[in-house]
């Protein structure tokens, strides 16, 4: 059912699978990326940083869709996640998406919800930052933020972030990140089994 749009994504997925639970990392590679940031495990954003403004601020928008209310649609090009509401409306969240070569599309269901997910830095990151713990229990400063929603059997998740400045950018390895308040809001609105469409562009 899933349609990979980029061969690189498969390669990346295989590499990432080896890292088991990696998602938010960004490596300083020769690949062209939208925003050159590295993970900052342990960084705790301020409330002001977590408050988005403009288009990426969580808001209800007009949204014509044949999908039933409660469905999630992710528009990777526009960096928006829509939660379909009744009467041609949707709650729209600003997100960060996979960087070049790490974007994908398909249809999944939320298979698991996790509060304060744990984080395991991938081997490449440990090599670069050997002072990092190999496992960081969920909590403030965790790069996955306060909530995670697993997408089917993939290694990808919708999760929070301790880097609010990356919202609106292509920075991840295929996961979708929201600021903490938004991911908590979404987490509270969706259930396991919720259908999630991941598209490069959502046509209204």
């Amino acid at each position, binding site marked *: 059912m899933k349609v990979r749009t980029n061969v690189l994504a498969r390669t990346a997925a295989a590499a990432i699978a080896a890292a088991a639970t990696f998602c938010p990392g960004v490596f300083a590679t020769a690949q062209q990326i939208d925003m050159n940031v590295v993970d900052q495990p*342990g960084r*705790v954003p301020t409330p002001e940083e977590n408050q988005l403004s403009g288009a990426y601020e969580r808001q209800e928008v007009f949204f014509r869709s044949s999908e039933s209310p409660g469905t999630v649609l992710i528009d990777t090009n526009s960096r928006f996640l829509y939660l379909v509401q009744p009467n041609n409306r949707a709650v729209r969240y600003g997100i960060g998406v996979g960087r070049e070569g790490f974007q994908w599309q398909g249809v999944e269901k939320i298979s698991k919800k996790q509060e304060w997910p744990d984080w395991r830095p991938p081997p490449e990151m440990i090599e*670069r930052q050997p002072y990092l713990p*190999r*496992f960081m*229990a969920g*909590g*403030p400063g965790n790069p996955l933020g306060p909530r995670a929603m697993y997408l089917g059997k993939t290694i990808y998740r919708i999760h929070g972030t301790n880097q609010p400045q990356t919202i609106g950018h292509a920075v991840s390895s295929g996961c979708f990140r929201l600021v903490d308040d938004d991911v908590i809001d979404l987490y509270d609105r969706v259930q396991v089994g919720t259908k999630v469409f991941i598209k490069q562009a959502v046509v209204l």
Partner: protein
Amino acid sequence: MAKAFRTGAAALVGLAAALLAGCASEPPPAPVIAAPAINPDQLVGKWGFAAYHRDSDRGRTIKEAKAQCNRPYVISKGPGGGVMMNLADQANVSELVLKAGPDGKTYLGPAGDAGTADDRVVTNVDPNSFTTNWVDPDNASRYGTSVYERCGKKA
């Protein structure tokens, strides 16, 4: 005149006596720095390394640390008798020493006073595990409590 002279002389003698008494008194005791309770050799080896922020996560973090020996944190002996470890956010190791603090805690950090910002407090030490907490509040907030579990043959 003679009376004034005698009075002045007495004052000088009194002052000299006071000064001499002061010189003769014991200087304030130097702070007693006890030897740290931990030997650096106890920290040398390969360790499963994990961290947590909430005390309720300690048990499972220890379990996770034990499971991380496929990518251990390696502590070697330093040329000066300390141990080679990373400071916070430093990719290169440097020699750290164990220091007994005046508060009775054992600190691990660069040579010098105990309890400085680059130090961490070492606790829960046994032959196969130890725990550290950064002194610097920012580091402590970001990295939480670190647990190290010995890999391979247990001591």
